[in-house]
């Protein structure tokens, strides 16, 4: 009351109070999503933040720690009595052996659904929310390479949701911008109410080396002067709008031991987004590498001054060596950015997941202090072995259980908005540009449920569940097996053929398989039920990004990486140059699916 009175008399004070109200409101909203993460049976812990209302929590890898070697997956429960009784009525003459077989099959399918794969197993964690309640947290994905982990809260009642915070754009941060950190420093809060500390961004795009075998690298972090202390690890860094722009993970320390000296580092949210798909799918997120080390050199004087980033070490079989780069070459360009320092190159590479397609520019060394013209190559990054996991690097080594991945897929979709009003027709044309022979080019036209595929002289149509045909040389015929499969797989996996009315249905039974990265755009990979190894790729906000499936006609696995300015057509892991894609949103035409042209 007194404050309001003063404010009325003093416009400056009114402005200060208004800004204070805005700030406290943002803090109040954010605080509800900040949690404490602790092990079940040992002291210590860190912080985390809920980023999805279905209870997905982001924290640091060093908070969840390495896998629990002594942990075993729980045994499958006995089949429910109702299921057993139903089976008995269906099989009235079943003997004991048949019952045992049914029980085993039921248990196997239970394990298949509820057990994660991989060898790094974690005991559930304790997660304390600011509502004062403790939840069980299932460790899903881990990223030891850059210190991240995702947990899923186990609801206390079906359908429970949690307060959550959205991610912000960490690349929009500027030195001097106000930020606040939240978490549970020194585990002070026994009721899990987070501590709030306030500061500014001191620096952006900082590269901080890791420890051990390339673990816990912070390739692109935000430096802040907001006090960050032990226990803050895994907690969020917010911008003024209350969006998560980073995860606080480490601090530089001075002479006074392991406490804040005003230099904290947060993992940038845009880097986190690149790994979010892998983390939510329960994977061991892999970082990309070019298999080489390059150092900044600044030597010589006057006209002979050499300043740049030069390749210092690489393996004989390194991917960059295959691309033509040798020791001593100058690295000039990476993915559209001029390379100015070794730190910057490490930042550019460090934020990318393994197996991402990248472009590299270099000038080959030609004798002493001479370099050729810049060459540019496109290559697929290898994975960086952090030595932190027993899990192999196979496609499905570490993975959350099917039920967790189904839940993740539904949680992701639940937050997307689909425009149901726009034209429902979609066309998708893959064409050879110049050099290609055009044998794989085609045009697909769909209204979201039906599909017409024009493959050279052939036109394949799937006009309904039972209505399909091929038209070739003016003749109508029924589809060959592989043609039918091709239509089915194209429509199931290619999100560019879906529309707002059908996308929900298309993804209804999908499982989250991991993340994908198409030239700076992060996305999710959804595995679709059915044969053909079909994957649909969508961006974090639900726009189509590409797809992958086994093409039964061309007999290869095709991948379309579709960036608005760039298209990668990959067949059986090899980049196919000279292809382009055109997509269009149009009013659909009934003649697409008609037997008569």
């Amino acid at each position, binding site marked *: 009351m007194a404050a309001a009175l003063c404010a009325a008399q003093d416009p400056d004070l009114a402005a200060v109070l208004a800004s204070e109200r805005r700030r406290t409101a943002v803090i109040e909203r954010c605080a509800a999503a900040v949690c404490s993460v602790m092990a079940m049976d040992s002291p210590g812990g860190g912080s985390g933040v809920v980023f999805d209302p279905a209870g997905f929590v982001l924290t640091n890898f060093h908070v969840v720690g390495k896998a629990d070697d002594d942990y075993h997956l729980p045994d499958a429960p006995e089949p429910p009595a109702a299921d057993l009784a139903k089976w008995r009525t269906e099989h009235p003459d079943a003997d004991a052996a048949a019952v045992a077989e049914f029980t085993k099959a039921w248990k196997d399918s239970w394990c298949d659904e509820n057990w994660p794969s991989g060898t790094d197993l974690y005991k559930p964690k304790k997660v304390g929310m600011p509502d004062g309640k403790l939840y069980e947290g299932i460790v899903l994905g881990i990223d030891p390479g850059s210190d991240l982990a995702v947990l899923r809260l186990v609801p206390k009642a079906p359908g429970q949701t949690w307060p959550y915070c959205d991610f912000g754009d960490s690349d929009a941060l500027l030195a001097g911008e106000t930020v606040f950190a939240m978490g549970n420093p020194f585990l002070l809060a026994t009721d899990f109410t987070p501590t709030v500390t306030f500061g500014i961004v001191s620096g952006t795009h900082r590269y901080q080396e890791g420890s051990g075998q390339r673990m816990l690298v912070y390739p692109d972090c935000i*430096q802040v002067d907001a006090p960050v202390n032990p226990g803050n690890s895994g907690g969020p860094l917010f911008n003024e709008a209350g969006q998560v722009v980073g995860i606080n993970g480490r601090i530089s320390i001075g002479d006074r031991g392991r406490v804040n000296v*005003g*230099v904290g580092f947060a993992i940038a949210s845009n880097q986190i987004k690149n790994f979010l798909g892998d983390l939510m799918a329960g994977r061991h997120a892999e970082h990309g590498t070019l298999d080489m080390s390059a150092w900044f050199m*600044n030597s010589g004087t006057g006209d002979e001054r050499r*300043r740049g980033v030069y390749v210092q070490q690489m393996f004989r079989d390194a991917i960059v060596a295959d691309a033509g780069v040798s020791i001593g070459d100058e690295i000039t360009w990476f993915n559209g*950015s001029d390379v100015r*320092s070794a730190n910057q190159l490490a930042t550019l590479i460090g934020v990318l997941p393994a197996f991402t397609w990248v472009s590299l520019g270099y000038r080959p060394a030609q004798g002493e202090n001479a370099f050729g013209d810049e060459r540019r190559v496109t290559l697929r990054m290898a994975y960086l072995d952090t030595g932190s996991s027993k899990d192999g690097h196979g496609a499905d080594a570490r993975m959350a259980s099917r039920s967790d991945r189904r839940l993740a897929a539904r949680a992701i979709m639940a937050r997307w908005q689909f425009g149901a009003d726009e034209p429902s027709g979609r066309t998708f044309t893959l064409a050879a540009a110049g050099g290609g022979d055009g044998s794989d080019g085609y045009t697909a036209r769909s209204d979201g449920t039906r599909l017409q595929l024009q493959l050279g002289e052939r036109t394949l149509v799937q006009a309904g569940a039972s209505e399909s045909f091929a038209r070739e040389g003016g003749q109508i015929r029924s589809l060959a097996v592989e043609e039918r499969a091709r239509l089915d797989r194209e429509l199931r996996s290619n999100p560019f053929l879906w529309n707002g009315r059908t996308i929900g249905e298309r993804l209804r039974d999908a499982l989250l398989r991991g993340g994908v990265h198409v030239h700076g755009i992060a996305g999710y990979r959804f595995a679709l039920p059915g044969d053909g190894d079909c994957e649909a790729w969508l961006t974090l906000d639900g726009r189509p990004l590409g797809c992958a499936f086994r093409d039964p006609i061309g007999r290869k696995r095709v991948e379309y990486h579709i960036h608005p300015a760039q298209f990668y057509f990959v067949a059986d892991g090899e980049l196919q140059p000279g292809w382009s894609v*055109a997509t269009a949103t149009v009013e659909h035409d009934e003649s697409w699916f008609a037997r008569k042209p």
Partner: protein
Amino acid sequence: MKTILIAVAAVTAGIATIPAQTEDFGAAYSFDERKPQTPVERVIAKVQPSLVKVHGASGIRGITSYATGIIVSKQGHILTLDQILIQQDRTRVVLYDGSVHRAKVLPEDPGLGVRLLKIDPTLVNGELQALWPPDEEGARYRTGQFVVSVGNCFRLAEFSEKLSATFGVVVGKADTALRYRLQDVKYDGELILTDACNNPGHYGGALFTLDGRWLGINARLLDSKETNTMLSAVIPVRDVLPYLEDHILGKRRVEEVVEKVPAWTGMVLFDKAGRRSPPAYVDRVVRGSPAEQLGLRPDDLVVRIDDYSIRSCKEYREVLEKYAAGDSVQLTWKRGTTIKNGELKLARDPKAEEAKK
């Protein structure tokens, strides 16, 4: 660069044609920054080109080998703190654009603990963006005022990477006369104290107000082992002005040369040689000396001269050097369990006078 687009019959709007994979297209990941908007962001962005990274010889015994410097002239003068291991021929300066320059080391100012470096301006791309101490009005600061401190703490920024910035308020000012550990501070004047974080490497950086006025140069942390506290101290830039004018503008100030006569108290302390200087116990008092007139006796312990705490014979001597014969000081001493104090009139040492004759 070959980029071929294929044509699609335009049916309605919403067509996107994505070109084939090429090696020349937009950045996947951009370092481009948005424009600064708030006063803090604006100050930090504005001053970055005027600050440099300073690398000295490799550090030994906990003396960091890196610091920050401030460009103070277009001719290549750079002001830094004289507390890193700076050696002629081994000192390098990294400018905002990432270029590395050898720096010549100019004489330091022993009173301030600052030093000028000089780089060759003809080797610099473009013009150096120099700062200069503001006028007296502009250099004024008040407790509670918001400040931004910019420097290269922990050498986090390399080459063209931007220096770190921290934010805080002026928490007060300190007269170094009150300092507890005399050996730590060379500077003998008023220091600005701030809670804007200051760490190794940040030293030699600059402190600014939110409207971009340059207030001071980051000094080393002042610390107290007794209370386990540390304070960020900043040397006011106005105090550095005479040194800058002397070395950059060649404006040598004519100082009045006054012959200083050493002060004499007539107390002889019990000062045995050793690694640690012992407490300032009086061994004997010269007859007829100022100390005797004030009533000092052997075994008295001198604990304070004016505002200076005296904890050892060494500190007693150092403090006394600040005074001259003819000055008066408030002396506090301890006798047994009682504290006494009184005004001590400093005199000329009769023996020294005789020797002179």
